């Protein structure tokens, strides 16, 4: 049985982090292929239900990333998102859901290196944490 390869979904905004990840590519920096990006117009668009769905469908880890404060293409989407994350993360933690599996980050269009590094450290952390066993159990109880 080969080493555990985590499945990590990245929810990112189109204007900063998606562009930052593009820069990682154009600069040919390497990172772990376990991470795949889903593109959103803005972190403000990212519905917390989608994060639950990711876990429900077998994600071992999640990255959520957008423009730095004050850099939002829509001026305040990321500020709204930040408030939701603060409460959502607190709630998950309270329910015993391992918030180490959700990595929140600000990554600008210029921070290609930061993206690569974020992905690698996240992948490494999740690998250490192993498969999301608790959720695994739930998952077997039915499709979603």
């Amino acid at each position, binding site marked *: 049985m080969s080493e555990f390869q985590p499945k990590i979904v990245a929810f990112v905004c189109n204007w900063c982090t998606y562009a930052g990840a593009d820069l990682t590519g154009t600069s040919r920096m390497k990172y772990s292929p376990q991470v795949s990006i889903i593109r959103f117009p803005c972190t403000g668009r990212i519905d917390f239900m989608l994060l639950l769905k990711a876990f429900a469908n077998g994600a071992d880890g999640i990255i959520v990333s957008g423009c730095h404060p004050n850099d939002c293409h829509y001026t305040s989407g990321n500020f709204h998102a*930040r*408030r939701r994350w*603060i409460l959502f993360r607190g*709630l998950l933690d*309270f329910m*015993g859901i391992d918030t180490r599996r959700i990595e*929140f980050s600000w990554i600008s269009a210029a921070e290609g290196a930061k993206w690569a590094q974020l992905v690698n450290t996240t992948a490494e952390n999740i690998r250490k944490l192993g498969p999301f066993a608790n959720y695994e159990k739930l998952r077997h109880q039915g499709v979603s």
Partner: protein
Amino acid sequence: MEALKNKAREWLDSRMVQLVIGYSQGSGDSVRAVFVHDPGQVETLLFDSRCRQNLAVYLLKPEVKKMGKAALVANLTTLRAVLQLAAENQIGEHDVLTLTVNPAGELLVLSTLEAIETYVAISAPDLSVEEKAELEKYEKLGMEERWQFWQEQFSRCLKCYACRAACPLCYCSRCTVECNQPQWIPVPAHDLGNLEWNVMRAMHLAGRCVNCGDCSRACPVNIPLYLLNQKLISDVFRNFNARSGMAAKAENTLSTFKPNDKEDFIR
């Protein structure tokens, strides 16, 4: 008590209101909601420490709305629910008259939202000392213990949505659980669906819940849902210094922001 009945009678007589929503003696030692239309029935009204139900839940029900203008016998959380509903454009200044009895036992007529605001200002900052203590008890548990605790609780969930029906702030005409394109919440009552439902329920009340506790009281399998609400109430207060149901014009915690909102987890 007499004062309460008299005021109710007066209002019904004068047709100022067509309906008084209040509490009356239920079976055994319990109290239950009562809808008084006819001045003759005001005798059944009562108000004491047992009157915990949040009667604001009835205000938005179509069948109740049909009955005409209502007066509400309200405890503190009911009044806060009224303000929160006003803040969410669900009721207007003239939609409801409220009566309450203050700790000193005097009847107060709160006929304007402003009057309600002044009165609810007496309520505790966010949570009572006891509530805080209980919350901390669970927060102190290890992550795995918390997981086990909630899994065990949710394993009993029947997806009966009594919590939703009892909540004065769950008034959506179509709840997200009823969406099937896409199907956000799986229909069957299995652990995954139960978890997702309860996370969503709590999040949708974040910055809105007035901590009446009716969700827990309504739950047929005694899931301590109030803990989830109180966790968010204390987080909302600590992080954003905000409290729901204190003002009729307040902006909602999650629909506003401050550029300097503090967090310690975003890299």
